[in-house]
């Protein structure tokens, strides 16, 4: 589902990042069902799960590289390429639709000049769809870097974007 942008799949990753990935792997060696918590730990830390880390993960957990690749790509949450500095999610699910999320998403796409799964030219914001944030009592909902926002109209989304860009 995720469209890699402007990046070759063999993304170059610094030694420093590889060292921290190895530390996460080390910390998860004895965890039952380690792969998901490990992928989360890596993504929480560096923002994505670089493809160059797959062989190290596979080796440590006794999996094939294809299996690791399969898991990373199955889940919408994981990304294999570096996102923008901030991640803006717009809820596309029914409750938010009933309160006008379609107009909101059209506005955001136009304002940011990107479609879903893309990052703004200045690298500030990656736009992603999300299917329910559990904030359906305050639809339409959006979230910026895990901070959920409710009853988001155009003024509010402009504020959210401006805040992120200023930060």
């Amino acid at each position, binding site marked *: 589902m995720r469209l890699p942008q402007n990046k070759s799949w063999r993304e170059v990753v610094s030694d420093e990042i590889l060292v921290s990935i190895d530390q996460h792997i080390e910390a998860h060696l004895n965890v039952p069902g380690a792969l998901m918590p490990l992928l989360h730990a890596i993504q929480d830390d560096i923002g994505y799960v670089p493809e160059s880390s797959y062989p190290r993960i596979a080796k440590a957990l006794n999996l094939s590289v294809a*299996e690791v690749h399969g898991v990373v790509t199955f889940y919408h949450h994981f990304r294999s390429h570096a996102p923008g500095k901030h991640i803006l999610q717009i809820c596309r699910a*029914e409750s938010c639709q009933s309160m006008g999320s379609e107009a909101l998403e059209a506005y955001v796409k136009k304002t940011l000049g990107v479609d879903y799964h893309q990052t703004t030219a200045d690298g500030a914001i990656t736009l992603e769809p999300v*299917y329910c944030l559990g904030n359906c009592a*305050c639809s339409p909902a959006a979230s910026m870097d895990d901070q959920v926002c*409710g009853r988001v109209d155009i003024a509010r989304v402009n504020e959210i974007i401006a805040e992120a860009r200023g930060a």
Partner: protein
Amino acid sequence: MAIKIYVPRDSSALSLGANKVAANIQAEAAKRGVEINLIRNGSRGLFWLETMVEVATAKGRVAYGPVMPKDVASLFDADFMSGAAHPLNLGLTDEIAWLKKQERLTFARVGITDPVSVEDYVAHDGYKGLKNALAKSGADIVKEVTDSGLRGRGGAAFPTGIKWNTVLNAPADQKYIVCNADEGDSGTYSDRMIMEGDPLVLVEGMTIAGLAVGATQGYIYLRSEYPDALVTLNEAIANAYQAGYLGEDICGSGKRFHLEVRRAAGAYVCGEETSLLESLEGKRGLVRFKPPLPAIEGLFGKPTVVNNVISLATVPIVLDKGGKFYQDFGMGRSRGTLPIQLAGNIKQCGLVEKAFGVTLRELLYDFGGGSASGKPIRAVQVGGPLGAYLPESQFDTPLDYEKFTEIWAVLGHGGIVAFDDTVDMAKMARYAFEFCAVESCGKCTPCRIGSTRGVEVMDKIIAKEDHAKNITLVRDLSDTMLNGSLCALGGMTPYPVLSAINHFPEDFGLKKGQVA
């Protein structure tokens, strides 16, 4: 003594600025030199009044809402700390009609206590169920749950006691309790409210489940879209360990139970129990063939109880007050209460826990106050993205699993999403297919291919191409998905699609009353 002030930490309240309100209250109190004890509670579930601030007074808790950050200074000016008058004063919280009309059993403490305080939990009847359970045999605990009539609140409504009995009687060196906290349905947030507002009731319920079936390890599979719930749960679990309610020796009984939260990763299908287990094992969330049932061969091949958050969070009150007490609520074979979530285009959205039997109309109008937009409510979707759309003529249906089955609808997890008369039901049918295509695990053809075909055909219907032929095609496709899918994602996508066509034919270019 410092006056207790409550500001919710519920993420919907946070989404409306509750943290800013809390910070302003702290700052204003410091500025005025008044001592306060700020407690971050769960939400009472009246979301149109969030941020709802409460103050503990001699007469009881007084509520103010909706409080914006800018209102804080004026609240202090009006002496809200003594419960004084103010335009936002809502009176005594316990007297708010919207709450008084409810039967809050599972949600008894939500919004009242400090969610992560074991002391507060125990002071409000927490851990009474566990105490009773510790004095019983596993079989007797299971019997109590069976007697309560509790059916799974995750969607399938399978009797919880019967599931537990299967795990109890499956011999194994290791068994597991898995809590399904993947709450992916649009229009639902009751699991989240429990996890953020009273996580210890879930911890207690899982511990009781462990004692009942002989499982010593529990996992909560929590959707990644709930970062705030993750924090609350982890705090609550750490505090329960600290207080001896989790661990190697629960309350000195010599029995053990360990609990850990695992994060999901944004796949709707992982709410399906076998897909969830695959995911917990570190694999792609492909749905498993059944049998074997998870109760026999579940997580890592061991007997496993998989239950929804609400099912498990209801167990403590059943063990506290008895199965009989719980089953006295409800109607027909739907016993007890359902935490209903009002969502979408409704004026007063929120959490209504009522005994089964309440009608949709009461919920939409008496509780909900009609639509948010002021236009007529035209359709409601009950039970998430796989639930049917209901027209006005069905609003008198009582909430009851069997009554909903009779009208080819489902209650699911109790989410109700309302749409006003601007909704285009053909678009909603298209969206149902689209969602299925995005979320399909890909294991079976009717779902994987059928959903994408469905989107294409709906596009043609919307563009009025080969109309009659394409309506027939959607029906055939739905039939194939209904009958040929391995799980309910593919198998129930036809519910929203066909109900939209049948109840709102005019949106599909058909004459009213004409069902192609």
